[in-house]
């Protein structure tokens, strides 16, 4: 693809801190090459802001190769921008035309309070993981690879769920700001693997309870989350989470609860 130079108008959400009301400010991005990523374009705009003695636009980023889950904001009303299955850092400026007007906004959710400009506090996701997204039984040091045999298709399925990078685009795109897709992926990934069985029911109950406690909405099956997910996490995982929770309502984890009841 040949290189073009773009001149763009950016309307960026600026908010000094959690208690500031925030507002859109308009900037010009001049002579942007189509080979730049969206974040590199913002870097260029920020360089100019710094030269002018203004505060640069704050945005989250880390790996810039689409695998860490740090970046993410709304570009023209779509989480992570116009390219499907792509994080904001991997959206390249060739997606846009010269003269385009772009609206850049942070994720908006009660559970994701805005820290500054485009940065939101996603520690609600950490607390959902802390509620049960782990295996606490001692498994010893790294076992021999074939000690626990897991069929290939099961491993593949667990990996499909584990692909979630926790960027929060699902919450941002959901009309109800629901964290169902994230929570479902995390519950399902461990529910599929043998190591996850011991705490399976407890995990589902605790993680769903934490998801609710964080003030996220519920799933109304619109499918917006799946459409914007940079990792293509499927709505099917939400169906599985629902099944896991109902199952957990009728079933206990033998190892955890019965031994506790016996005082062992």
């Amino acid at each position, binding site marked *: 693809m040949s290189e073009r130079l773009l001149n763009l108008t950016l*309307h960026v*959400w600026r908010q000094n801190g959690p208690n500031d009301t*925030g507002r*859109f400010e308009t900037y010009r991005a001049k002579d942007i090459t189509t080979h730049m990523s969206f974040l590199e374009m913002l870097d260029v705009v920020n360089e100019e802001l710094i030269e002018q003695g203004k505060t640069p636009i704050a945005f989250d980023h880390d790996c810039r190769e689409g695998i860490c889950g740090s970046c993410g904001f*709304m570009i*023209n*009303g*779509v989480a992570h921008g116009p390219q499907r299955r792509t994080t904001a850092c991997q959206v390249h400026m060739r997606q846009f035309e010269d003269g385009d007007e772009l*609206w850049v*906004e942070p994720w*908006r*959710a*009660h*559970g*994701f*309070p*805005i820290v500054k400009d485009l940065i939101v506090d996603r520690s609600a996701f950490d607390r959902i993981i802390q509620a049960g997204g782990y295996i606490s039984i001692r498994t010893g040091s790294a076992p021999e690879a074939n000690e626990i045999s897991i069929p290939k298709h099961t491993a593949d399925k667990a990996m499909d769920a584990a692909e979630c990078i926790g960027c929060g685009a699902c919450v941002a*795109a959901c*009309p*109800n*700001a*629901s964290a169902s897709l994230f929570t479902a992926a995390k519950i399902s990934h461990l529910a599929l693997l043998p190591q996850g069985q011991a705490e399976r029911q407890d995990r589902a*109950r605790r993680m*769903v*309870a934490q*998801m*609710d406690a964080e*003030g*996220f*909405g*519920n*799933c*109304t*099956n*619109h*499918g*917006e989350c*799946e*459409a*914007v997910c940079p990792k293509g996490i499927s*709505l*099917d995982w*939400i*169906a*599985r*989470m*629902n*099944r*896991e*929770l*109902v199952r*957990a*309502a*009728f079933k*206990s984890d033998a190892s955890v609860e019965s031994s506790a009841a016996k005082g062992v």
Partner: protein
Amino acid sequence: MQRALTLHQTTIGKKVIMALSGAILVGFTFGHFLGNLNLYRGSEALNGYAETLRALPALLWTARVVLLVAVGAHIAAAYSLWTRNRKARGSRYEHHKDLATDYAARTMYWSGPILLLYIIYHLLHLTILPAHPGDVYRNVVEGFQNPLISGVYIVGNLALGFHIFHGIYSAFQTLGINHPRFNAYRRDLAIAICAVITIGNLSFPIAVLAGLVTL
């Protein structure tokens, strides 16, 4: 078991209540539509069918209580989830584009209340305050000959169609009924059930207005 009773406190539990009560209501709606087909068999058939139902008061009242509880649970869960969802967004987006939401999904909070008002009107019109008690056929045909009343039934049934289309598809998701082999058919099944009930129900007022069914 104790834990099963606290399921409704979670958002997912509330959705399960909506799915199960919705399934009861869709099941009733389908049966109700089949019964209504007696309209095309004439006055005696429809009135005879109504008579049969009324001759079984135990069954009739059990059904009524079950439906009332289902409607109550459906609305209570919907209201609780709706208030929660309104708070969940926090601040509004200046720009927000839907990528996957269809018309039926977007309008659930409209089609639901419209449906409730329609059901109240429908019960007042034909069950609680009928013009000619005992003569169902006459009540229906005379009613539908008035374009205004037919209009109410047509709007009500369109709302019903959209509501149960998204509702049936959603219920599969909520209850965790999914499998790669038949996932693709869930939407087709929702369309099929919804189309039969909606087109069937719309045909009654249209047939009367067109003069195909007369007194």
